[in-house]
């Protein structure tokens, strides 16, 4: 997947807007150490994808990430950025072309937010006008007010500071971003929000991103590909989240992704990915016999009552149909409705919570889209691959 982002066409970077990254038999052994920190690590990240390095602490995932921008120098093998070995570049120059985000963020407390974001453009010698314009663009991109640029990091909340960290890393439009547990120190609600924002941002900017985390759920949510690492820097499995969950390579991976990997797979797809049940509807005012006959044809003992605008009103048990035309009073209120973008995981949760009755799905305009039942969800797990 190569990006069509054109922001990189100006400027001195030799890379396109997103670069491929390749680990070739990479090793790192510290002098005097008995065991290598990383031994023979090979994998490839296509341009524009998010690759998550995940594993238990001490597995070498952060070390592997820091080898890319030469914060640590490798001792064996090679790392190619867009086909060029990183060892052939001067470390400082290389790093200016690679976005760098760490868990503690490391904003400069003595500089304003705008100055912080302008760090790499200044190092690259951009003129003032271009830098200022870029800072404003980035503040907007990460959903911060323009006036925030004049504040100091000490005045911001943790979530805001992490947004600034991401903006600062993106400042010179690098073809590769390294993110080391970027949301690890953020509370769960804000973490989910920042993850969503990064995914939304990524849909727009299409960078190659190496994302380090120890949280498998975060890895599944963020990664186009996941590299599961085990102690000693060994690669246990490198696959898309779906393959990883459906087909773990070994016992270690299976244990790491968790016994609930089936449920986790359901987070990967949404209601819009499956064929919904339809036809199980009744309209206000139609003859009871017609509704009763339709339910019988589908083998169901209830229908969804909709109004003239196709909006669902409630559940209509067939037993309540007593010969008179279908009326609003016959319906029971809906416990919940889902949208097409609701994940199958959440859909399953809603179905189970509502006594295994089919879940009503509505479109963005509130009109009935169809129904999801347990069988559809479990079928999705069998067929998708």
């Amino acid at each position, binding site marked *: 997947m190569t990006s069509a982002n054109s922001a990189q066409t100006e400027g001195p970077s030799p890379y396109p807007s997103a670069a491929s990254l390749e680990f070739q038999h990479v090793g790192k052994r510290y002098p005097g150490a008995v065991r290598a920190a990383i031994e023979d690590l090979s994998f490839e990240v296509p341009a524009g994808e998010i690759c998550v390095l995940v594993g238990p602490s001490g597995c070498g995932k952060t070390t592997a990430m820091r080898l890319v*921008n030469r*914060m640590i120098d490798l001792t064996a093998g090679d790392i190619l950025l867009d086909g060029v070995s990183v060892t052939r570049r001067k*470390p*400082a*120059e*290389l*790093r*200016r*072309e690679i976005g*760098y985000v*760490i868990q*503690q*963020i*490391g*904003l*400069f*407390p*003595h*500089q304003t937010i705008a100055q912080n974001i302008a*760090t*790499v453009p200044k*190092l690259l010698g951009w003129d003032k006008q271009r830098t200022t314009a870029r800072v404003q663009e980035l503040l907007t991109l990460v959903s911060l007010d323009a006036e925030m640029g004049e*504040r*100091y990091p*000490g*005045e*911001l*909340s*943790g979530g805001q500071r992490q947004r600034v960290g991401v903006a*600062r*890393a993106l400042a010179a439009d690098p073809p590769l971003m*390294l993110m080391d547990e970027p949301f690890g120190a953020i509370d769960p609600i804000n973490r989910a929000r920042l993850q969503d924002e990064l995914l939304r941002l990524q849909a727009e900017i299409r960078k190659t991103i190496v994302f380090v985390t120890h949280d498998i759920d975060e890895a599944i949510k963020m990664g186009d590909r996941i590299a599961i690492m085990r102690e000693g820097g060994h690669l246990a499995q490198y696959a898309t989240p779906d393959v990883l969950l459906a087909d773990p390579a070994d016992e270690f991976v299976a244990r790491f992704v968790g016994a609930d990997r089936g449920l986790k797979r359901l987070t990967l797809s949404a209601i819009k990915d499956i064929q919904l049940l339809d036809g199980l509807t009744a309209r206000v005012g139609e003859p009871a016999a017609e509704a009763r006959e339709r339910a019988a044809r589908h083998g169901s003992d209830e229908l969804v009552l909709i109004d003239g605008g196709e909006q669902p009103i409630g559940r209509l048990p067939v037993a309540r149909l007593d010969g008179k035309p279908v009326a609003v009073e016959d319906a029971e209120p809906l416990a919940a409705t889902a949208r097409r973008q609701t994940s199958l995981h959440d859909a399953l949760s809603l179905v189970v919570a509502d006594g295994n009755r089919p879940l009503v799905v509505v479109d963005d305009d509130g009109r009935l889209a169809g129904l999801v039942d347990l069988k559809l969800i479990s079928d999705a797990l069998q067929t998708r691959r």
Partner: protein
Amino acid sequence: MASGPVIPDFGRGSSCVRDNGLFCWGWVKQNWSDTLQPALLQHILLTAVAVVIGTAIAFTLALAAHRRGWIATPVVLVTGLLYTIPSLALFQLLVPLTGLTRTTAEIALVSYTLLILFRNMLAGLSGVPGEVKDAARGMGMTERQLLWKVELPLALPAVVAGLRIATVTVISLATVAVFVVDEGLGAPIYSALQQTFKTEMIAAGALCVALALLADFLLVLLQRALSPWMRVARA
């Protein structure tokens, strides 16, 4: 022979001076331009030269120690030793080497600033959070850029804190320099010690205190101007 006055002639002094009052404004006004003002200016110069030279030496040593940690211990040892030598003794020890000169006075004064300045500079530099340095390097700053753009600005509050203590210390100690060179506010204090008339000593002493307070205040202003980020509330 016994015809002349026994009491020495103090000239046409004011009644305050004639009565040997504790503090005589009239005397201060009368002697401002030819005694107190020159002494004050000399004192400021003595202090400024000592602090500037001391800062330059301490800065060089602190940068060296910041890069190579092992340097810190011997520097603290030597400057600490200098700091403990009684000032009067140090001035006298230096006289055989550099004579009764301003240089002698400055060497002694400088040596008292080193420990304070060095320790504060080093503390300021090593107090820079690791993640800030990691981010700076990770974004492609060279070691030199890291030092000048990140570490030194962040160390500034600690550096100025050291500068304040050193300056106030030197202003006070510079009065003792009168034992080697007849300059500064120590001169009127010393001459007043040998008479019963106290105004000269009180005036010079008060000027010394005022100078110390003023210098401290100016340094606080300087620090606030140079590190506006220190005033924002920590979130």
